[in-house]
């Protein structure tokens, strides 16, 4: 044994270990060298050279094998014994395979996913709107038994108005259909004390309201019946106000909150989900942050025939139907009328009632446009599906050989289809995910465009319901377009495909027919959407072009409410109104200013009135009390006589200005100037007002509504008692407006500063130009028209893409044929014509189908159209023209490509 030789051998072996990965060498190198030494020793002892050589040969082979194994192991970790695992589900394997197949065609994936995302995203966004407005359960217990009750005085043109306090008290005493009745009324109040004073929406509510809704305060208690009387200084606040104003303090109960400069004790906090009143098309529809007891005043209790401004809810007793309740209210009506003063009854006064499910009352007119939108966006998804199905088919055509090969190698048809469906599922999943992001983003952007009175407008968002909808939609989408290839493949045809390839087989022709059908239906759907969008846009254009009767340009408006506590006497109110007017008029750049109880398009007080000497029954009219140069400020044309002015003071002769509609109705062919009118019935004690002027009709309620009768009265001549009324605070709720010679919005800070100097704690809200108000008043129509226009454009583009895709594929597959044609002398123009003709034939078929469907669809829109008939000729002429032009553009590219085919190459490649 010669240790030195061993040492030398071991040193060489150690050097050779360098071929192994470093970490392996580091861990086992020493041990390996030791083992090598031991290997060497016995062999070397016997036959020194031979033994050593054999040992070296074996060690070298082992090193190389180890090196290979270690490298392999590094690339894919080898398992010496597999873990006991469940077999990979076939579906997962299909998905994996499909994902790999898709990854090879990123362009196809991108186009498909974008198309699907557009379709699914638009649907998700619209669904979340519609769901919030129509479908989502109301935040109250058992909402289906809640009934909204309205009164009506049909003979004065008020078929559906709120309830008045004495009538509500009568109903409570007389009715047997409901477990209880509860009234509520919105009122804006000033919140002061800690921090900035602000205006918040409040609601007066009956003590019975919360029990009726089945929702109690999260903290604290409801009002007691004893507190539902004048004088109780208590309030319940919303969760939001609790967080915002009190930082969610635990000891909020018993604390004071300064409302309209009166301290109220907080007795309860509502839960976070509670929103009430709920948004809707009718009055008292603004969610309140503050609830105070209804506490009818003695004046309200005896105000028969006045102040029909309460919203009234009832909860049907178990077993009582709505129809039965309606019948009962019909029977109650004469008994309630009997409690009215004889002079009112002498005018032939009759009460009518409208009882409707609370839910319907909230959705109102919004139901139809929302469902139309949902339908339209559904069509967009159909277009997207048809388009993607087309892409899938085109791809299938390109893969015919691959599929055929797989069948030939023993893949079952079922398995192939599973993989195809898995591909669809992946695409739909990606499309759905991206669509969800699109919806989220577009809802965020759209929130400010939503009409304020859209039911549920404040709660639109992507919640679990919407998410479930999107997932369901994506799955359904995957099924629809995923099965497209099934329609066109048959096992026997696949082998045929393998033999012949390309598009000339039976399967190929079948596929082409299906693709043509898809293109035709895409075009047809696009036509329907285009017609719908066209009609709505025409209607919207007419609506905004309507002469509203006033000039909204250059006018800034804002709103303020004087707290009754600080402005208790009528003289104090009148003085402040005059101060504000003068301060506004004195602002540099202001031409004229006015204060009034309402603005055009902002809803008006309606009052019953009597015209002197008229034998017609009393009717109601819009009424506005104005101070300053109201008509000049709003650019309302004075047709006859004079406008109201500074001379029409408190002690002067009682005067009024009427609009043309009123003059026409009462004094047709006579001079209205000098005629007299008064509020109320002929027997009323109200003073006569002399008509001193006639102004042009103004679209008061909305641009779409025809102007109604309107009376304008000097603010100063309102009765002291009326101004001092604390219940409705009607005369202290004022709109300030001024006309400027420059940009009105730029004057807002100066105007706010001037008012703050007059009353530092008075919040001024709703500072907007009149143009903004006009624009907001048509927000619903604009949203509808622009959404439908967007949908139509998407559908049009998709139709064009579909047409292009089918034609491009046809050109590619008919290369040889076209080559032959050209080789035989067909001019390029003829080849172009060939393709264009095919494209136009498809377009024409889609157009014809689409126009027929559009005629039907347009009828659904008719109630949403303003001065536009569903058969609007320009729309029905423009749509085919636009579509034909777009289709022509879509065919141009494939046609040109066909004409550039080199016959020699085309034939050679066969």
């Amino acid at each position, binding site marked *: 044994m010669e240790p030195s030789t061993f040492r030398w051998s071991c040193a060489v072996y150690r050097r050779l270990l360098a071929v192994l990965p470093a970490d392996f060498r580091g861990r086992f190198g020493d041990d390996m060298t030791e083992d090598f030494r031991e290997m060497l020793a016995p062999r070397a002892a016997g036959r020194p050279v031979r033994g050593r050589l054999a040992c070296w040969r074996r060690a070298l082979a082992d090193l190389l094998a*180890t090196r290979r194994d270690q490298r392999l192991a590094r690339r894919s970790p080898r398992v010496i014994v597999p873990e006991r695992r469940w077999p990979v589900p076939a579906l997962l394997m299909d998905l994996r395979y499909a994902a790999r197949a898709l990854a090879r065609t990123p362009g196809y994936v991108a186009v498909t996913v974008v198309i699907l995302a557009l379709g699914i995203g638009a649907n998700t966004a619209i669904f979340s709107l519609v769901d919030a407005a129509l479908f989502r359960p109301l935040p109250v217990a058992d909402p289906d038994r809640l009934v909204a009750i309205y009164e009506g005085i049909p003979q004065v043109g008020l078929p559906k108005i709120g309830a008045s306090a004495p009538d509500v008290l009568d109903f409570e005493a007389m009715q047997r259909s409901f477990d209880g009745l509860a009234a509520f009324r919105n009122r804006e109040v000033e919140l002061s004390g800690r921090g900035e004073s602000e205006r918040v929406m409040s609601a007066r509510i009956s003590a019975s309201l919360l029990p009726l809704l089945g929702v109690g305060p999260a903290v604290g208690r409801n009002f007691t019946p004893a507190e539902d009387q004048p004088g109780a200084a208590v309030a319940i606040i919303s969760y939001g106000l609790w967080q915002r104003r009190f930082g969610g303090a635990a000891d909020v109960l018993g604390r004071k909150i300064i409302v309209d400069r009166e301290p109220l004790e907080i007795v309860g906090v509502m839960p976070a989900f509670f929103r009430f009143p709920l948004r809707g098309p009718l009055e008292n529809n603004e969610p309140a942050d503050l609830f105070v007891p209804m506490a009818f005043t003695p004046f309200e209790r005896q105000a028969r025939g006045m102040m029909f401004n309460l919203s009234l809810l009832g909860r049907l007793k178990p077993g009582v139907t709505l129809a039965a309740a309606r019948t009962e209210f019909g029977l109650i009506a004469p008994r309630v009328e009997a409690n009215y003063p004889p002079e009112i009854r002498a005018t032939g006064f009759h009460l009518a009632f409208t009882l409707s499910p609370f839910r319907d009352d909230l959705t109102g007119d919004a139901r139809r446009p929302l469902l139309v939108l949902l339908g339209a966006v559904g069509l967009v998804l159909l277009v997207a599906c048809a388009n993607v199905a087309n892409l899938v088919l085109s791809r299938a055509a390109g893969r015919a050989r691959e599929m055929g090969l797989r069948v030939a190698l023993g893949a079952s048809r079922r398995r192939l289809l599973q993989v195809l469906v898995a591909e669809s599922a992946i695409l739909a999943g990606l499309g759905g995910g991206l669509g969800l992001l699109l919806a989220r983003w577009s809802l965020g952007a759209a929130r400010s465009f939503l009409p304020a009175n859209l039911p549920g407008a404040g709660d639109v968002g992507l919640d679990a319901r919407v998410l479930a909808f999107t997932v369901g939609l994506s799955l359904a989408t995957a099924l629809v377009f995923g099965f497209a290839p099934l329609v066109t493949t048959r096992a026997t045809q696949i082998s045929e495909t393998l033999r012949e390839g390309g598009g000339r087989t039976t399967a190929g022709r079948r596929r082409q027919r299906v693709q043509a059908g898809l293109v035709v239906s895409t075009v047809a759907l696009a036509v329907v959407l285009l017609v719908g969008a066209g009609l709505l846009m025409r209607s919207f254009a007419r609506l905004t072009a309507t002469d509203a009767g006033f000039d909204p340009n250059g006018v800034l408006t804002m709103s303020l409410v004087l707290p009754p506590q600080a402005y208790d006497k009528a003289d104090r109110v009148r003085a402040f109104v005059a101060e504000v007017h003068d301060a506004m008029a004195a602002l540099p750049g202001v031409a004229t200013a006015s204060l009034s109880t309402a603005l055009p398009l902002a809803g008006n007080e309606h009052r019953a009135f009597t015209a002197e000497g008229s034998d017609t029954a009393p009717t109601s009219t819009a009424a506005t009390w104005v101070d300053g140069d109201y008509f000049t400020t709003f650019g309302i044309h004075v047709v006859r006589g004079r406008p109201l002015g500074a001379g029409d003071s408190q002690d002067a002769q009682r005067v009024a200005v009427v609009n043309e509609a009123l003059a026409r109705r009462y004094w047709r062919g006579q001079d209205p100037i000098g005629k007299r009118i008064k509020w109320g019935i002929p027997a009323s004690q109200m003073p006569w007002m002399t008509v001193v002027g006639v102004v042009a009709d103004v679209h008061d309620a909305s641009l779409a509504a025809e102007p109604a009768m309107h009376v304008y009265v000097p603010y100063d001549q309102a009765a002291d008692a009326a101004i001092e009324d604390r219940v409705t605070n009607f005369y202290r709720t004022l709109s300030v407006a001024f006309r400027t010679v420059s940009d009105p919005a730029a004057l807002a800070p100066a105007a706010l500063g001037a008012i703050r100097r007059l009353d530092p704690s008075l919040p001024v809200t709703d500072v907007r130009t009149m143009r903004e108000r006009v624009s907001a008043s048509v927000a619903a129509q604009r949203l509808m028209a622009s959404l439908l226009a967007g949908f139509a454009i998407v559908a049009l583009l998709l139709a064009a893409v579909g047409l292009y895709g089918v034609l491009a594929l046809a050109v590619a597959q008919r290369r040889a044929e076209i080559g032959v044609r050209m080789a035989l002398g067909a001019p390029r123009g003829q080849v172009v014509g060939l393709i264009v003709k095919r494209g136009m034939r498809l377009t024409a078929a889609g157009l014809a189908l689409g126009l027929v469907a559009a005629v039907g669809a347009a009828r659904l829109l008719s109630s949403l159209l303003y001065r536009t008939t569903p058969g609007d000729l320009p729309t029905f002429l423009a749509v085919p023209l636009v579509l034909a032009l777009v289709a022509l553009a879509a065919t141009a590219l494939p046609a040109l490509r066909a004409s550039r085919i080199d016959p020699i190459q085309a034939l050679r490649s066969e």
Partner: protein
Amino acid sequence: MTEDTGALTPAVFHILLALVDGPLHGYAIMQAVERSAGSSLSVGPGTIYGCLQRMEESGFVRAVETADARRRRAYALLPRGRKALETEAGRVARLARIVRAKKLVTGEA
């Protein structure tokens, strides 16, 4: 998919077999494998340690310090390794029975 059959590689099988009687270090394992596998399997240090590494990762064996003068590590069989060996031995026995039943081999193996 040879893994699906549950078969151990021959080297792993023989290493497990060698460790049944107690912990051994590398060269001792090599010798034991040589004895049990005969000429059918030629193993060197690299193969042995490569296997041991994977077996350690799979929880079949673990390295133990020994009182050996050269401070070499020895490897001890773990329950999981014994289980795998038993399964494999059963499989081999089954195969042997089949082979014998088909009269491919005469006499006792």
